[in-house]
């Protein structure tokens, strides 16, 4: 659903939206894939105030009186997809001045009107971890985004318990972050620079603690050190680009030394060191690409990493991501399906798109499965989520429909076409204009 209609009545919009969400909605007759439990044929999903009110078999759930009922027989419903690694939003974090820039925030860089967010809705993605690229050892703070129709980045982002915008920290090792000075040109130097940064942050903390209540003794405030300490304290999770088996081992070594929580990202060679990964209990946000290579560290990529983690008894460590623009948000389901082709179970594949992924962002209590009390983020599919022939027909976020394939304007985000690559127009540009902009 476009935001145009929403902005049409600027003053009235918030109350109209609230009204829509306080309505009780019941989706009846479809096959439910809750992820947290077994699939249910002929299920009922009841939604109110943006949350899941009830979910279960039709025989067990009574549709509340006055509820708006949607017949979804023949369809399959599953939790909105969680993309643990995306570059939509057109934002860049760190610049080329230094290899470690923990102070830089994706919050300050995202264009909330970027068409990539719409394409993600069309692909069924309701939660994203949006981050900067991998050309730095540390390229800044990522942003966890709820993919609702919003006009500011503040309205898009998840928040920590303290109210601050929620996100992790993007790090990288391997070849992408090796560049001419001041960047490292070797793997040894890369690790040394990261260790120095953490040591400096810990020294900063020691000085702050030593100053106690005496403000005159405080060191100058350092945003970078503050962000690094959030890693040490476990508030922020490190999202670490890493491909080669030895680079993966290096990440786990540094994580252990400084106590930061880490999700391994891409992990092209996870299948080679799956035992190490399982022993460290390190979640893997896996990329699935069509062909190995394209760069040295992806030359040994194999889609069987998910199956290998599962074989070692750690299916909960399996997640997927689009890395959009490396793969396309509109076909995110395909990443999990290709992992099934390479041997992983359907159950693990679907969890890797949803609940496992949500947990990689500390959002597992809120999204990622169809459970009572969780956010009403779900998608309506024309069939089996792991079939190429299945289309995402609707995407719902917080109980509001944000994408509908049957709406020609939305369909353009799904299929492309004239103007589909342009950022979403200013809401006031096309009042009442039902035609596609040309």
């Amino acid at each position: 659903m476009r935001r145009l209609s929403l902005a049409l009545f600027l003053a009235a919009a918030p109350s109209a939206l609230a009204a829509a969400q306080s309505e009780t909605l019941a989706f009846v007759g479809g096959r439910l894939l809750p992820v947290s439990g077994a699939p249910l044929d002929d299920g009922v999903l009841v939604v109110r105030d943006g949350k899941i009110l009830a979910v279960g078999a039709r025989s067990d759930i009574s549709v509340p009186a006055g509820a708006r009922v949607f017949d979804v027989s023949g369809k399959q419903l599953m939790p909105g997809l969680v993309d643990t690694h995306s570059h939509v939003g057109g934002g860049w974090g760190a610049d080329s001045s230094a290899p470690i820039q923990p102070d830089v925030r994706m919050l300050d860089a995202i264009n909330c009107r970027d068409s990539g967010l719409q394409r993600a809705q069309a692909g069924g993605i309701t939660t994203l971890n949006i981050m900067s690229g991998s050309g730095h050892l540390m390229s800044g703070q990522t942003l966890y985004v709820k993919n609702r129709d919003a006009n500011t980045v503040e309205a898009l982002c998840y928040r920590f318990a303290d109210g601050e915008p929620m996100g992790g920290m993007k790090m990288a090792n391997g070849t992408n972050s090796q560049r001419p000075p001041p960047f490292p040109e070797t793997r040894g130097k890369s690790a040394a620079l990261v260790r120095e940064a953490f040591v400096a942050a810990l020294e900063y903390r020691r000085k702050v603690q030593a100053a106690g209540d005496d403000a005159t003794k405080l060191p100058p405030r350092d945003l970078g050190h503050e962000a690094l300490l959030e890693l040490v304290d476990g508030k922020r999770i490190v999202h670490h680009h890493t491909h080669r088996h030895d680079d993966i081992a290096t990440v786990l070594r540094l994580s252990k030394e400084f106590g930061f929580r880490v999700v391994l990202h891409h992990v092209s060679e996870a299948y080679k060191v799956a035992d190490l990964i399982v022993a460290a209990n390190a979640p893997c946000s896996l990329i699935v690409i069509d062909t190995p290579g394209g760069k040295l560290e992806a030359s040994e990529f194999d889609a069987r990493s998910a199956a290998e983690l599962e074989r070692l008894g750690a299916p909960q460590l399996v997640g997927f991501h689009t890395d959009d623009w490396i793969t396309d948000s509109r076909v995110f389901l395909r990443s999990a399906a290709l992992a099934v082709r390479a041997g992983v179970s359907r159950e693990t594949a679907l969890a890797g798109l949803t609940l496992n992924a949500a947990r990689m962002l500390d959002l597992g209590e809120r999204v990622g499965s169809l459970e009572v009390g969780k956010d009403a983020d779900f998608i309506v599919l024309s069939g089996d989520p792991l079939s190429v022939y299945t289309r995402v027909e609707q995407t719902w976020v917080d109980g509001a429909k944000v994408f509908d394939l049957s709406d020609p304007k939305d369909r353009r985000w799904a299929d492309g076409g004239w103007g589909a690559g342009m950022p979403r127009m200013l809401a006031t540009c096309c009042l009442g204009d039902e035609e596609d902009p040309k």
Partner: protein
Amino acid sequence: MKLISTCVAVLAFAAQALAQDLAVRAELVHTVSGEPLRNGVVIVRAGKIAAVGAQSNTPIPAGLRVLEAKVVTPGLVDAHSVVGLAGYLNQAQDQDQLDPSAPIQPELRAIDAYNARERLIVWLREHGVTTVHTGHAPGALISGQTMVVKTRGETVEEAVIVPFAMLAATLGADSRASGDKSPGTAGKQAAMLREALIGAREYQRKLAAAGDDAAKRPERDLRKEALVALLERRVPLLVTAQRHQDIASALRLAKEFELRIVLDGAAEAYEMLEPIKAAGFPVILHPPLARFAGELENASRATPVALRDAGILFAFQSGYEEYVPKTRVVLFEAAIAAAHGLGPQGALKAVTLDAARILGLEQRLGSLDVGKDGDLALFDGDPFEYASHCIGAVIEGVVVSEAVR
């Protein structure tokens, strides 16, 4: 599913079977030229298809190796790629698809730049691709020649079936030079191409005028020789043009010089259906999974259906990728189109028979008909389903892959 090799014959008869003889039994045989056959068999003798029919009335000659699959299709034909010139490592030493020293270099032959042992070729073969139209890449006004290979052999000589298939040209932003170099604009691109073709026409005229008199012949010019092949319509110009105005420029150029062209990429072809149809040129469409950005920002997954409905001959390609993935796979690309309205039959045709037609090889490739090359792809289910596998590939009766992909 494993590729099962059944030794039907007793040893005494085995000697009668040739190296390029085999049979494939499948629950579903997609002939492409006709309706799919249930419980069918394909028999290949001396590298050519000798029989296609129902298992019940198509006896398998004694001594033949018999392969089993759920589904068999013609070997897939990738209508445009750069594999073999471009390698999977993506390092300077394995990237020979684009020489940046000049904007127009039609004398660059694909056969001089092809690494038959490149891993990307193995990868395509393991996904059922048995024929690839490959060569110099999009990205220069005329980047060089293309060729057609089978995905076999350790040398280009063993692989190649058409050494000079097309000349590769690119219009639009992707072949514009930076700084003060030419071509810097669309107008300059057209002017440079016209000048080059006029120069080649003059060369052609002088050659004709000289006849058998060697003394009167102009100095041999490899660049103009290649362009003369274009003017004589011996090869088409493969014009990569994504934007509608660049497609229009390609059609204008073709008309002026009476060229055969093949439109490539053609992201905005859906805006140009009538003129493309009127000109009668085929389209090798961008991969449906290509990034819809830059020159492809207006690309649409509805384009294959639009081309089909307009009656325009089209095929899919793995295309040219600068980064990850280093090549796409036409099996995957056709699958996306199949799911966006084209349907499995239409999608299969666009990576077999229609691709062969665009390459001028439809007498030899692209369908399971008696007399055509024994090129087959074997699958353990619907070839386009995500969770299916390609379980084998056969080129001219020789099993070239038994990998499960």
